[in-house]
């Protein structure tokens, strides 16, 4: 039953795309698709792969992940309070560690990020290392989610965080190698799809419903937004570091040849 629902959802996702592609291919371009059989086999593999992936996540990871998010923010798990004392934001340290670790690890396994990194490695002729790119995005994602969790604990408005992140991105943009900029901007959007969103949502919801004064519906939002922004910063930083290292090794090799 579950498998059937996932298949239906994924088909709903795929059908409009296939309709648009083949509609334009045959009505506007009026030329057959090259290697049609191969391409169709590939699309079926994408569909089956995604269905199996989601099915496996829902069977194993999502129930445990959301339960863990709940357990970690439950009262029983936090340090005992002295009578009348207020809860300090540092009491939630396990939440921050969990948010960081789960954000980083799920991003490494994110299928759409794998896709973009393969493409980037291909067209950069090996200058951009696909795995390093994914690690850079994962670190950014982990920071974004941790900050999102901290924001829910503190109850501060989302806008301040988003504006600050925008400012960092803008400053970095003018100091980064030009080649990395479009890829960095793209990596913000690709991180949040299949695997990360349900876990983040569970974490946000669990936190917002266990902390007094937060409403799950109002404060649960916003985590995805931060998770989208920080990978831009870390990928730009990856480009800056790579450029700096290339410069340094060039300077070294030129000084040794002198």
């Amino acid at each position, binding site marked *: 039953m579950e498998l059937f629902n996932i298949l239906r959802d994924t088909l709903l*996702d*795929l059908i*409009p795309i296939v309709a*648009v592609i083949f*509609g*334009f291919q045959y009505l506007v371009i009026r030329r057959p*698709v090259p290697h049609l059989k191969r391409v169709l086999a*590939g*699309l079926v*593999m*994408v569909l*089956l*792969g*995604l269905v*199996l*992936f*989601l099915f496996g996540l829902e*069977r*194993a*990871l999502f*129930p*445990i992940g959301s339960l*863990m998010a709940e*357990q*970690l923010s439950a009262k029983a*798990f936090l340090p005992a309070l002295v009578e009348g004392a207020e809860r300090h934001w540092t009491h939630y340290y396990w939440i921050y560690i969990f948010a960081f*670790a789960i954000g980083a*690890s799920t991003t*490494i*396994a994110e*299928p*759409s990020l794998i*896709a*973009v990194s*393969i*493409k980037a490695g291909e067209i950069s002729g090996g200058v951009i290392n696909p795995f390093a790119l994914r690690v850079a995005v994962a670190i950014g994602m982990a920071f974004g989610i941790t900050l999102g969790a901290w924001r829910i604990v503190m109850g501060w408005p*989302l*806008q301040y965080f*988003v*504006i600050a992140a*925008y400012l960092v991105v*803008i400053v970095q943009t003018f100091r980064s190698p*030009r080649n990395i*900029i*479009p*890829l960095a*901007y*793209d990596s913000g*959007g690709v991180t949040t*799809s299949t695997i990360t*969103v349900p876990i983040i949502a569970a974490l946000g919801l669990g936190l917002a419903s266990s902390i007094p004064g937060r*409403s799950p*519906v*109002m404060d*649960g*939002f*916003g985590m*995805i*937004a931060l998770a*989208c922004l920080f990978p831009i910063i870390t990928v730009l930083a990856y480009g800056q570091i790579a450029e700096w290292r290339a410069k340094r090794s060039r300077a070294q090799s030129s000084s040794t040849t002198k």
Partner: protein
Amino acid sequence: MPFVYSLLRQSLESMRDIAPVLLVVGFFQLVVIRQPLPEHVTLLDLGVGLLSVVLGLTLFVRGLQVGLFPVGENLAHAFARKGSAFWLLLFSFALGFGTTVAEPALIAVAGQAAIVMSEGGLIAPTEAAQDTFALQLRMVVALSVGSAVVLGVFRIIKGWPLHLIIIAGYALVLILTLFAPAQIIGIAYDCGGVTTSTITVPLVTALGVGLATAIRGRSPLLDGFGLIAFASVMPIIFVLIFGIVAY
């Protein structure tokens, strides 16, 4: 035989990709939380789930390289040969709109958002009002992604620098945030993230890179990427405007 071999190698890579998640979950379960698994999750579930995740990821990545990437690139080249910007832009809009309007993640977020809106008193607390809002929100977001892909493709044709447009977009987001009702801000910011699904991302990337390769004077790395970035900023702008105009 080479196909089977490449699948095997791919599945090893998938295992490597999944390993960090297992480590994190295992560590927290065994060291930090130290509580038995919930009753509705058995060890069999875990085994079956893990196996399907690895198998699924393997098939997906192979399918990308065999099916989705070539389709996107081939279309880009065909449009570039045809030389008609009108059809290309129409295609871009249809692709952006079509992939977003039925996106399951967006439907889920729109439903959540409708509840936030009625709790905030901006729409009536009836189911009909919530459904109307959710549908409107989905349409606004789908329109925004459609126009984002159009703008992104137009940029590739013209060769405009991406960062100036995106920074202008950020500025617009900041200005609109000042005027938008508080309840819609979180929703708007999140809508940027949920629109790009696992099937759309590879296809749109292949389209952009293919176009930048086919059009003379464009660099795939400089001009080919950026479509996803537009598709993440544009929904924020559209939803904020929607919030200002409608409420």
